[in-house]
């Protein structure tokens, strides 16, 4: 039967094409550039833009948190690098931190970012070895952000005015 190779080829092609379509709908790329990025992530060859990451780090150290986050977002468009997501969360924390009260909206965005960083890390424990930071693990940062969004009687403690930003 001469059709058999064509049939088998058709089955393989149909399954592959259908999988591609399901993958496109699952990842919801917003442009052809996103398609390329998602393809790199799926193929395991995705890398962040190191120059942009370093630029963002410089901005972060100058306390320009919003600019730093924007630059990190451009460095990691697929949101697939746990280290970058950790720094984004840290930028939310530092910008949202206040001696009297914290900015809940920024802390919540920080929580989202740190949760993403934790989920992206295959080992489970994300440790960032940066001497400029006072929290080096995603777990510490997450706990700090969660405490910042919770309401308790401790919020009325006047001694909290002396606390330090990490």
């Amino acid at each position, binding site marked *: 039967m001469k059709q058999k190779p064509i049939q088998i080829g058709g*089955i393989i092609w*149909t399954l592959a094409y259908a999988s591609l379509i399901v993958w496109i709908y699952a990842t919801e790329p917003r442009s052809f550039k996103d398609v390329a990025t998602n393809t790199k992530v799926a193929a395991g060859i995705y890398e962040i833009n190191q120059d942009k990451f370093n630029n963002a780090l410089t901005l972060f150290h100058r306390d320009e948190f919003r600019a730093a986050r924007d630059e990190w977002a451009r460095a990691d468009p697929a949101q697939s690098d746990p280290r970058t997501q950790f720094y984004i969360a840290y930028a939310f924390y530092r910008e949202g931190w206040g001696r009297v009260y914290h900015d809940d909206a920024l802390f919540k965005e920080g929580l989202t970012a740190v949760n993403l960083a934790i989920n992206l890390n295959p080992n489970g424990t994300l440790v960032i070895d940066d001497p400029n930071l006072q929290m080096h693990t995603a777990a510490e940062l997450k706990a700090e952000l969660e405490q910042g969004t919770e309401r308790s009687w401790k919020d009325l403690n006047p001694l909290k005015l002396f606390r330090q930003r990490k």
Partner: protein
Amino acid sequence: MTHYAERNRALLHFIVLPTILLTAGLLGGLRIDAQTRQFVFIAPPLVTLVLAILLGSLFVRAGAIDLRRWLSIEQPTVTNLSQLLTLIALFFATAQAFNSVLPESGLLHWMFSFFFLWTLWTNQFSNFNPQRLLKSIIVLFGTAFVLKHMLVSALYAPDGGWLRTIASTLLQGIAIDVPAVAPATGYISFFALTLYVAGLLLMAPVPMQLDKSSGNELAVRTEVLPESSEE
């Protein structure tokens, strides 16, 4: 000559047809955001799956697809698997064709869905042959396309002219939520529907390797695949 014809028929049936149907499925849920010009992929809503089942039922009832010949215990497993994948692709393409012409949300989404359901449900009790069914489907999707991508989008376009003025006057106080999509969406939808109809034209009531009857009912199909393959 016969050898090439047989091979081309096989290519058409086992590779080109599923590709056309799947491409229709891919494009059926694609919109372009009016402001950001970014892709928006809309998975088929549940109602489109119901509509696809109703239309699938019509295909079977009208004889456009002879399920007993498409999937048969007497055929090789590979053949059955291949035919099954084509039928699944047809179902997916049908759902996405409906998705393509349904407004995304709001009152119009439910109005369009209701009219589709009503039409397909009443058609279940009509006498159809494959040719009439195909014409009916083309008219159904053509009308919905014109309504959604030409009339409704013109009514709610930012620079919508007199049509918009009339609509806003007539429908004052009625919230009709129509998401803003770029004009390119209409072109994509048109292309998706064209592919879908082309897929239907290529779809035989009886698949090629079992097609031993010369009296194939679907006229267009007999033009595309004039002879049955002899195994």
